[in-house]
């Protein structure tokens, strides 16, 4: 079945070329930095409202109500690099950790040319450049995914896991199951499709 045709003007294009679906849910925009030419698709949820504050909200669900108590020091919750792509229904959520009895949020950093698949949930500390997160995958809190790593569809990367560059992880919990080829990330080939992906977004 062909997907329903996107309504005209589905995407808002910012000055730096980010294409953001009007049907995405972005919370706490002042705590989110998009590097430009990034795509955020419909129904994606980006939780910029979950950032570190002096007085921490204990319940993350009520965090938006307690957000921005001190606007003079805007802390960054989520950074996304250039040509990254957040698919439909994906969730970006800053990682959190219980540290000395206090539950606090840490920033989520996403690099350039990153792909986050449909319905994936990302709570990593960082996703490097050219990282691929497959459809329906979950990247646990404080995980570190290095450049050119590949998370297979449906994988569950456990909290705190480090995935080295060029490695493919899959399974629940995710393990390293292989490596991508040396040509991975070459422009236009597997891992190097970010520019093409960006260009076709919003064209009807």
């Amino acid at each position: 079945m062909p997907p329903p045709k996107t309504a005209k003007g589905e995407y808002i294009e910012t000055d730096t070329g980010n294409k953001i679906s009007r049907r995405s849910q972005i919370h706490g925009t002042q705590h989110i930095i998009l590097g430009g030419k990034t795509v955020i698709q419909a129904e994606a949820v980006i939780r910029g409202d979950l950032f570190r504050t002096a007085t921490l909200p204990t319940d993350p669900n009520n965090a938006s109500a307690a957000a921005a108590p001190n606007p003079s020091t805007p802390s960054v919750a989520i950074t996304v690099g250039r040509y990254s792509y957040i698919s439909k229904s994906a969730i970006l959520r800053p990682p959190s950790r219980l540290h000395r009895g206090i539950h606090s949020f840490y920033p989520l950093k996403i690099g350039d040319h990153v792909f986050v698949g449909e319905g994936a949930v990302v709570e990593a500390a960082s996703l490097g450049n050219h990282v691929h997160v497959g459809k329906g995958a979950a990247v646990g809190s404080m995980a570190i995914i290095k450049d050119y790593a590949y998370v297979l569809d449906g994988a569950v990367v456990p909290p705190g896991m480090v995935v080295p560059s060029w490695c493919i992880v899959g399974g629940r919990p995710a393990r390293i199951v292989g490596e991508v080829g040396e040509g991975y990330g070459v422009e236009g080939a597997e891992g190097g499709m970010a520019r093409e992906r960006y260009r076709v977004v919003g064209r009807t």
Partner: protein
Amino acid sequence: MSRPFPYTYISCPCADTPVPDPARKRRSRESPQKSPQKPPPERANTDQDKKLSAKEEEQGEDEDEEQTFDPRSPRSNFSLYPPEQLLYCEECHQIKCPRCITEEIVSWYCPSCLFETPSSMVRSDGNRCGRNCFNCPVCTAPLAVSTIENATGNAPQQGPWVLSCGYCLWTTLDIGIKFDKPTNIRSQLQKMTDSTPPAALDRSRQASRTFEDLKHPLSSYASIDEQSNARERDGEQAAPKEDQGAPPMGMDARFAALKNFYRTQISETSNSPNDHLSSEFGFSSPGALNRLMSLYASSSRLSGLYGGSKKPKSKPPVMREALTASEGLQVASENSETDMIARLQSPECGWDGMASIDQRATQSPDARFIDDLLPLPVLLRTKRAKRCKSCKHILVKPESKPQSTRFRIRLIALSYIPLPTLRPLAPSSSSALPAMAPTSDLNSLPPLRPIHILLTLKNHMFDPVRITLATPPVTPGRVATKVTVLSPQFEIGANSDVWDEALQGASAPLTSDSRSAALRGVPEAGKVWDKGRNWTTVVLEVVPGTLPGSSAEGGDGNPNTETNDEDVLAVAASRQDEDVLEIPVFVHMDWDADAQLDQQNVGKGSKPDDKVTRELAYWMVLGVGRIQPSL
């Protein structure tokens, strides 16, 4: 990792050397006396060939394989690779797949802490991280070092510490292990689990030394009986003491004790005093070999033949086995098996209390229950250099630092062969082909409805290349899909300055989607669809065949598709995923390269301006989509 449609795979020519030419076999059959020449591959699409290939469907499978690459053949699994996984050897001028290279380890690193382990330490650390990296023995997720006293926030850096799994919530407390410090966990753990009494090791060394004293270099009584007798007497005295005193050793300690024991045995039982040195190098050392040879030689006629001396009458010294716990001997307890069975049956163990086979595979052989499982230090990974198997030239050499993603050398195939990308041509409203199917969903292609596929080849070389594509008119297998390349011969421009494209506003192939379709109108035979600085797009007209047994199967279906294959496996493999439409395409490329890189070729095909014509040919498989069972 299966890929979503559309995809392209490239077959490494190593699977069938020399590279099969689709028309060669045909030609040779027509005139068996003539030596097979190299006909133009585009002939594969002529009418004559269509008839021929229909006939050939009846021929044996082996002949089919030699002619047209069959993506469904079980052998194809071993030669098809995604383009980015292939390398290229500049010496052999050939594509290289993981089967035609050898690997060398550049560095070892821990995938968890990303620290490099020097090669001298790799062996002693057992190929595992010597720091604080552990995997959960229950679920394999990484373990985190955390303090139990987390709740009391005002007491930083206070233990005790545990390893805990963030995935299945297992902690070392489950097996009753806590750590005093959050550092050097591995050695702390080793101390706890091994419980190696250092005295035991010393004792064994002492015992061996006394033995050495016993065995005078000149004495000839060092026979096996005397030795073992002496040792037994010795052991009887020592054993009861040890059994009571020392707790049973852990696996590693026992291994160390046994290793130590055998090392001393080798040195003690060697004939020449020089052999003592050899013990450091183990069994494979020349000394050990010498000892073995003399062992056999002394008892054979050969000694009489060559040496002739009557001297070696004494029995050669023979190694004995470990006899005490300190030497690494572990006596099986009488009741251990019945105890284990009783425990398995007990209600507090149950199914959940037993370790699974997967869990036991990475643990000591004694581990049977969940409580026996120990945290696993993380296995190291390697960064590897890759060499061409045939000419030994290095094709890939990564920087040794674990965190670096750079390469010193990286000869990937995509720098040489054109990068193929596939895309269905969206039917334009003014299309002259009313039968054109909507191509939006590649997972259900309607049979017998022609579709147009755009194949873009992008050249990464600094020389323009000439390409000739050939496809079998009908795809191999039971589902006969008709394929026609509308313009099989074309050129691709050189990959000149990248900045040119950037400044020109980057008209990359995939952007000119429907816009250009409307501009370009209808695909025409003999005309390339689109062309850019270093890429060319051509159109493939594809008429998906009907699946066997489907309602749409009619007179158009190939009557010869019933296979008489002997190989049941091959049939099973071919029937699975039969609806997947994969098109084999033979690519022949040639280009004029600079000759200076290798002088020996200048004489052959040299051109006036120091150019050499190179050619490369390979099969490529285009994964177009899945065919619907019926219309």
